[in-house]
């Protein structure tokens, strides 16, 4: 705003070219800076109206200062006259009196005509009227906001304004009303459901179905593993030595590529059955039979179950097989202990491929881990039965 001091005047010639630089040096009057800047513009406009083409910065400053002082003096005098009349608000007559005081420096205008002594007919008023008629009307160059900006404090509405009655007797109604009770009372916070309960239920059902399916496939693999456990062992022992495969094998030395040997083809040394297991308790239901209800439950909709069902329908075969081969005793445990135990006991060697299979699966799917746990828990019961 301060730089606008000289702008309303015509483009300054060479003499006043340095007005803006001077302006920056000038110490601004602190709080009054805006008012003084506005006064400077107004004075510059008046000077322009008087006929000046440009003005020196110092002259403009001085004239603006004089204008402000004049305004304040006039106001002070008018206020004094209002106070003299016992009023706080000034009216036109106070201002006229004040103007007469201020104009007194130039002589008493209209004092020569002794007849008129009324305030309204005083010479100063006439002069002002003449001035307004004579001088051209130059409105201020730009809109001026009301200043100083005073923030009006917003008071809280009282009980009376709210048309409420105070909650207690001792509170007068002109006091500010209480805020709404919900703003200061504690209210319970409910857990907001992020998902639709119906969707959550559907998701749960889907996961359960998936788990059951993987459980069934696990059962199937388990059954096949137990069926060919001795076979795998046989392959390990002597598949390396001789290659009995008639098929066109690209690498005859690789035992893993050799076709499987039938259960009767290979002579396997009979394994001594431990006395605990040779008891009639052997007739207890096998793992497959223990899981029969579970398999039945998921039988529908799963094509793998068909195969499994076929096996289950002919349990005699596997039972007959179990008489000849070593009984597989599963001892499941949780966590690392299970692995340790599996490695420690040589009798459980055929569990190692199972566990490795498990670990591979664990990497594949997290859900399978849950399945494994379910299986472990399920396997606990038959084992207990066996040991009893």
């Amino acid at each position, binding site marked *: 705003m301060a730089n606008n001091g000289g702008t309303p005047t015509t483009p300054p*010639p*060479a*003499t*006043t*070219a*340095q007005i803006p*630089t*001077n302006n920056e040096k000038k110490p601004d009057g602190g709080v009054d800076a805006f008012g003084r800047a*506005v*006064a400077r513009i*107004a*004075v510059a*406009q*008046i*000077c322009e*109206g008087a*006929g*000046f*083409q*440009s*003005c*020196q910065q*110092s*002259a403009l400053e*001085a*004239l603006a200062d004089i*204008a402000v002082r*004049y*305004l*304040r003096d*006039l*106001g*002070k005098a*008018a*206020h004094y006259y209002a106070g003299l009349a016992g009023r706080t*608000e*000034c*009216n*036109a007559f106070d*201002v006229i009196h004040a103007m007469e005081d*201020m104009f007194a*420096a*130039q002589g008493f205008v209209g004092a020569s005509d002794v*007849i*008129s002594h009324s305030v*309204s*007919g005083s010479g*100063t*008023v006439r*002069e*002002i*009227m003449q*001035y*307004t008629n004579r*001088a051209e009307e130059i409105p*201020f160059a730009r809109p*001026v*906001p*009301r200043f*100083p900006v005073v923030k009006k404090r917003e008071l809280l509405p009282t009980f009376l304004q709210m048309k409420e009655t105070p909650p207690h007797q001792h509170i007068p109604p002109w006091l500010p009303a209480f805020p709404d009770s919900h703003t200061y009372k504690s209210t319970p916070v409910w857990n907001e459901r992020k998902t639709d309960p119906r969707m959550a239920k559907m998701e749960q059902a889907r996961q359960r179905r998936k788990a059951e399916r993987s459980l069934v496939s696990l059962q199937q693999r388990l059954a096949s593993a137990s069926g060919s456990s001795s076979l795998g062992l046989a392959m390990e022992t002597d598949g390396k030595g001789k290659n009995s495969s008639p098929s066109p094998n690209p690498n005859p030395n690789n035992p893993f590529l050799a076709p499987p040997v039938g259960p009767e083809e290979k002579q396997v040394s009979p394994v001594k059955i431990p006395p605990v297991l040779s008891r009639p308790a052997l007739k207890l239901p096998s793992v497959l039979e223990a899981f029969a209800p579970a398999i039945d439950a998921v039988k529908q909709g799963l094509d793998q179950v068909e195969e499994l069902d076929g096996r289950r329908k002919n349990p005699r075969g596997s039972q007959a097989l179990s008489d000849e081969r070593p009984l597989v005793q599963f001892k499941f445990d949780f966590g690392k202990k299970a692995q340790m135990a599996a490695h420690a006991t040589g009798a459980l060697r055929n569990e190692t491929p199972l566990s490795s299979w498990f670990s591979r699966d664990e990497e594949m799917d997290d859900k399978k881990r849950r399945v494994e746990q379910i299986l472990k828990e399920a396997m606990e019961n038959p084992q207990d039965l066996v040991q009893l």
Partner: protein
Amino acid sequence: MAESKPDDDAVLIEFLSSLMDYTPTIPDELAEYYLSKSGFQCPDVRIIRMVSIATQKFIAEIASDALQLCKARQSAVNKEKRDKQQKDKSLVLTTEDLSLALREYGVNMKRQEYFADNPSAGTNPTSKDE
């Protein structure tokens, strides 16, 4: 003069009401601000406008006096050097003219002895008024 009194009042009332349409150069906001600083209190815009018109008149009179002084000085200078007539035609409100004009209105404004109006005042003596 019983008849002149109501006439003066009517004129004053008419003048005050005419002020509603008159916009003085000194904005109402400025006048109001400085008047309220001096204790003046009035809700009527016309009264405030009357005050600002009085101020405007005061300043305009000073300015016109200064202008007359400026013109007189320029004509005096131009009489001496007629060749530079075209160059010094521009009317500039200078502190010297202003202080001379203000003396009539009871304001004593003295130019500082070594007061430089702008930084180039000393370096560029041709632009400086004598």
